[in-house]
């Protein structure tokens, strides 16, 4: 889904440490922070909360080397995660709910182990609650939507490792 203030994508870099990015993203969720920026003397990485108008994660190349003349890559955050084998994408348009009912605990939490076929969230479309189940066994590595968030076809919902 998009609103008009789309921010520009960053240039792709060839040394994305996906594990590091995921760890930071998990930290974000755990702590409830809006963004985390982490740097060493060789690289700097910034991960921000994944709402439609948020800036994508960026990995900057060290100043010493010349800038890579690569074609612009997709928005690093959403698209990279969406291409992961464990990415769970929305099969329809609707509203995502992380709990079976407002007074119940969420289906899953970050880090939970899930089985293939286990319900992980609900997408409500035209008053019908549709269960979304995990496509594989694994661990919830990322929850990409907030409770009650609108989703479109193909929206990234969760990532299962």
């Amino acid at each position, binding site marked *: 889904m998009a*609103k008009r203030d789309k921010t520009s994508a960053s240039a792709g870099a060839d040394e994305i440490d996906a594990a590091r990015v995921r760890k930071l993203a998990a930290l974000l969720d755990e702590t409830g922070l809006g963004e985390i920026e982490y740097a060493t003397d060789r690289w700097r990485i910034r991960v921000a909360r994944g709402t439609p108008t948020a800036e994508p994660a960026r990995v900057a190349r060290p100043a010493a080397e010349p800038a890579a003349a690569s074609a612009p890559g997709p928005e690093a955050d959403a698209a990279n995660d969406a291409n992961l084998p464990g990415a769970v994408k929305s099969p329809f348009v609707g509203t995502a709910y992380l709990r079976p009912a407002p007074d119940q605990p969420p289906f899953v939490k970050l880090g939970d182990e899930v089985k293939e076929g286990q319900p992980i969230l609900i997408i409500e*479309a*035209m008053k019908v609650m549709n269960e979304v189940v995990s496509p594989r066994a694994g661990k919830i590595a990322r929850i990409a939507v907030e409770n009650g968030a*609108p989703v479109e*076809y193909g929206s990234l919902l969760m990532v299962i490792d």
Partner: protein
Amino acid sequence: MFEKVLIANRGEVALRILRACKEMGIATVAVHSTADADAMHVRLADESVCIGPNAAKASYLNIPAIVSAATITNADAIHPGYGFLSENAKFAEIVEAHGIAFIGPSAEHIRLMGDKVAAKAALVKAGVATVPGSDGPVKDADEALAAASVIGYPVLIKAAGGGGGKGMKVAESPKSLGAAFHLARAEAATAFGNDSLYLEKYLAHPRHIEIQIVADNHGNVIHLGERDCSLQRSHQKILEEAPSPALNAEQRARIGKIATDAIRAIGYRSLGTMEFLYEDGRFYFIEMNTRLQVEHPVTEAISGLDMVREQIKMAAGAPLSLTQDQVRLEGHAIECRINAENPETFAPSPGRVTDYHVPGGLGVRVDSALYAGYAVPPYYDSLVAKLIVSGNNRNECLLRLRRALDEYVIGGIETTIPLHRRLVSNSDVINGAYDTHWLERWLGLER
């Protein structure tokens, strides 16, 4: 007035609707398939929602996805454009049941006019002449043979659930009727999910003349004159013009009144087009389209009325902006439909548009969602642009059209621009001396 309109369509008409909404200060939601994520109207809309994968069935024809998208974006109205769900009565009903306004006529009228047999019966009841035919569906080839012998050959076999020129077969004699009937039945079942067929006399040299009507929710009805859409290939319009070179003022007033009286009698509201075949001074009703039409710009050009704006305003409850006496039809306009197809074989030519230069100047309008770098997807209709010229008279239009076609550049894909250039230098077209069989005959000769 609506605060937010969801545009349930794609391509040039989605852009057209977006433009009208923007001018009215209405927020826009563009729904699109994955293939259309970079469409111009998606880029320009205030919000966008991906509703499904490429196939039309899973996206632009996907009612739950579209209604869901309207719900999550809080749209208060949906404009269905033309094609897709625009004449789907079930869609109109579901939309309205969700408390969202459907910018178009009522589901009942969509249903009535969507059943071509029922539509003819309703118009006959309203005193309108129709093409002589079977006066109802024909159950089988035997009934068809019997009906055809009364009507007289050649006959046209048409699908009751069809329309838009699709699924029609001609039978020249009793010998070929059986085969044509069975073919038509099979096609109708596949294309429309309804294999009910009826027969009509196949006229020798008719012109396709359609009347644009506009009706508000308060019983006011006007017409905006006619469009001549006789240049057709496989019953698909290629070029349209307003007014028709074949009608005089008296005939125009007469058919306009017939159409508005019928609309009033039926209680129809919103935009609508009554299509007639005109031969030897007589008009025969064939069908009614209960939506905005592709060729509406030629009527906008000669009437000065923004028809999409009018349609949205009426859907929000506003009365018509004009009375019939206030309607002024001036000058002439011609529209060329430009398809992404080979201009000789008509093979589809999707692909990436490289160079793109649109003609301009006085009296030139281009409605298109193309842009340099845009990839025309292979999954949908091949119409990619409409070139509309207007002028003080038909001659000026032809000169202007020739000039504009020479200037229009669409690189990277094949288009039917070369076909249009040949047409506008043809003496029959220049003289307005053509009927609905003309183009196919000419194409046959040219091969």
